[in-house]
């Protein structure tokens, strides 16, 4: 377009200059042509330059409208598509989404939230969040697992008053540092809870079913050993003893699995009683002493300060000491030194169980309390482990509102420590207790 205009103007200018010179030669033929031609050529060049310059400035400063309009159209339409796209994503996201503004009013309520809560979007927009999402705290507390370290679900009430367990994530949103509201994502975890329950029931059922045949093997082997079927030869006795001890190991494993499934099902009874930890520890030491003697370990039991009587469930805590004291003996080579020490802190009683045994490799340390976890080296050293002992210990300490930790260096030894609050363990009504 611009080029065309310039061309037209240039043609006009050439015609004009040509006409001017032709006229001049006709009117004044006595003048030499060159006298006029040189200044005229300069004049022409100047005019042309000015014209071109003006065109250049014009072009760079104001974009011509018909060129820009499609770009804007395109932007607007992509913005619209984006908006629709994101709205669709939010609306059809599998989890319920409720967004509130700063005043707590609902501004977004997606399809999943509609179907989970039974409210329609148009019924809730602009309403207070708390009017729409009601939480059944009583069920939430009853149903929540007793182990505080595990996630528990809150119970949301639907429009019709029925409820469901929900897993929730709430995040606040905003621009820069100013918060504009919060977005809550939630989903129904009934399925997960059921699967979890089924898993526990399965373990429980399988364990119960295993018990009768295990009891039968144990009983009959014992009867063989006791001579109920006549005196055994030394070799027969030794075989029968092996059957007996292996069966006992299997029974212990079944008991352990049952205990874990009980604790995890949250149905365990926690019955705190005034407990003398000193007495309890001494009893457990008496019980495990035979293992210490087998491996020629020396051991010391030390109560640093007078240990007050505290309210804990003695059966549960007993299990903790049994497991830790047995582990110390197990994972220490012969003639090791074991130390059991109880001390009273400001708010807790701390128990330290130390050995100078194999220690725990750094790579194993963070997995130590995991279910079925066994250190690679322990597997080759010890046959008797299940990978459940410490897991159970951690569970028990959790329900007792204590803490457990350890320090270990490979080749040097390990110290396990746990604390129990002086204020005691709160009671928890359940229907089950531990098997010992």
């Amino acid at each position, binding site marked *: 377009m611009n080029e065309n205009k310039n061309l037209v103007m240039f043609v006009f200018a050439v015609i004009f200059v040509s006409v001017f010179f032709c006229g001049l030669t006709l009117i004044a033929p006595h003048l030499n042509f060159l006298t006029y031609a040189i200044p005229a050529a300069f004049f022409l060049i100047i005019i042309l330059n000015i014209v071109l310059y003006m065109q250049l400035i014009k072009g760079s400063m104001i974009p011509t409208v018909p060129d820009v309009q499609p770009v804007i159209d395109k932007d607007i339409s992509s913005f619209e598509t984006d908006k629709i796209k994101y709205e669709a994503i939010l609306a059809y996201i599998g989890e319920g989404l409720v967004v509130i503004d700063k005043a707590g009013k609902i501004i977004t309520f997606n399809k999943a939230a509609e179907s989970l809560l039974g409210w329609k979007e148009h019924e809730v927009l602009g309403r207070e969040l708390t009017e729409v999402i009601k939480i059944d705290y009583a069920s939430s507390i009853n149903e929540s697992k007793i182990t505080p370290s595990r996630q528990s679900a809150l119970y949301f009430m639907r429009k019709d008053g029925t409820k469901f367990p929900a897993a929730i994530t709430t995040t606040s949103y905003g621009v820069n540092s100013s918060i504009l509201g919060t977005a809550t994502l939630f989903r129904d975890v009934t399925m997960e809870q059921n699967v979890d329950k089924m898993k526990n029931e399965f373990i429980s059922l399988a364990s119960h079913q295993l018990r*009768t045949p295990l009891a039968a093997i144990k009983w009959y082997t014992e009867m063989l050993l006791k001579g109920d079927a006549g005196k055994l030869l030394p070799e027969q006795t030794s075989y029968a003893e092996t059957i007996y001890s292996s069966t006992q190991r299997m029974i212990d494993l079944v008991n352990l699995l049952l205990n874990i499934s009980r604790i995890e099902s949250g149905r365990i009874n926690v019955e705190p009683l005034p407990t003398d930890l000193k007495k309890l520890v001494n009893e457990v030491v008496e019980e495990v002493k035979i293992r210490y003697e087998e491996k020629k370990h020396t051991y010391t039991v030390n109560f640093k300060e007078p240990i007050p009587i505290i309210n804990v469930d003695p059966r549960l805590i007993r299990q903790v000491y049994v497991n830790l004291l047995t582990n110390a003996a197990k994972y220490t080579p012969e003639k090791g030194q074991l130390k059991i020490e109880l001390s009273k802190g400001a708010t807790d009683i701390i128990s330290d169980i130390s050995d100078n045994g194999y220690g725990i490799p750094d790579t194993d340390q963070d997995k130590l309390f995991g279910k079925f976890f066994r250190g690679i080296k322990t597997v080759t050293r010890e046959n008797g482990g299940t990978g459940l002992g410490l897991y159970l210990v951690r569970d028990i300490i959790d329900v007792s509102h204590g803490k457990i930790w350890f320090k270990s260096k490979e080749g040097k030894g390990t110290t396990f420590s746990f604390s129990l609050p002086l204020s005691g363990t709160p009671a928890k009504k359940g*229907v089950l207790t531990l098997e010992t």
Partner: protein
Amino acid sequence: MGIFDNFKALFQPPNSPQQDNTPVAKPTNQKKIVIVEDEKILADALGIKLEHEGFQILKAENGQTGLDMIKQNKPDAVLLDLMMPVMDGKTMLRKLREIPEFKFTPVVVLTNAGEVDNIKETKEYDNAAAFLIKSNINPEDVVKVVKDLLTVHL
């Protein structure tokens, strides 16, 4: 052993003799024991053991036949399983205690872990004399418990 602590707590015989050779049952003066247990192999094991100790043994495979057998034979003690077909142990015990004659017959409940979880539940089980968890004990332990019970009841 934990089992025996439980038993003692329940029954509290202050100085009850726990010796194996307590002269409780002699073949001439046989004590009758009814074993109510649906698992035949376990019932047999207990039967063999108790017979060796000079007891007379009767076996029932469920609560209903057990109840009939007890009424008919008036045993000195009963070993009772809990989970059984036809009539479970808990129901049988309740029905048994309804009969005045058997109100104080010593009953040892044999359980699988998880069936009876709290010693406080004893009351629910109409004063059972003891709870023994099958996989955690030996027939010999049962013999001891039975002997203790019968010594005290003599």
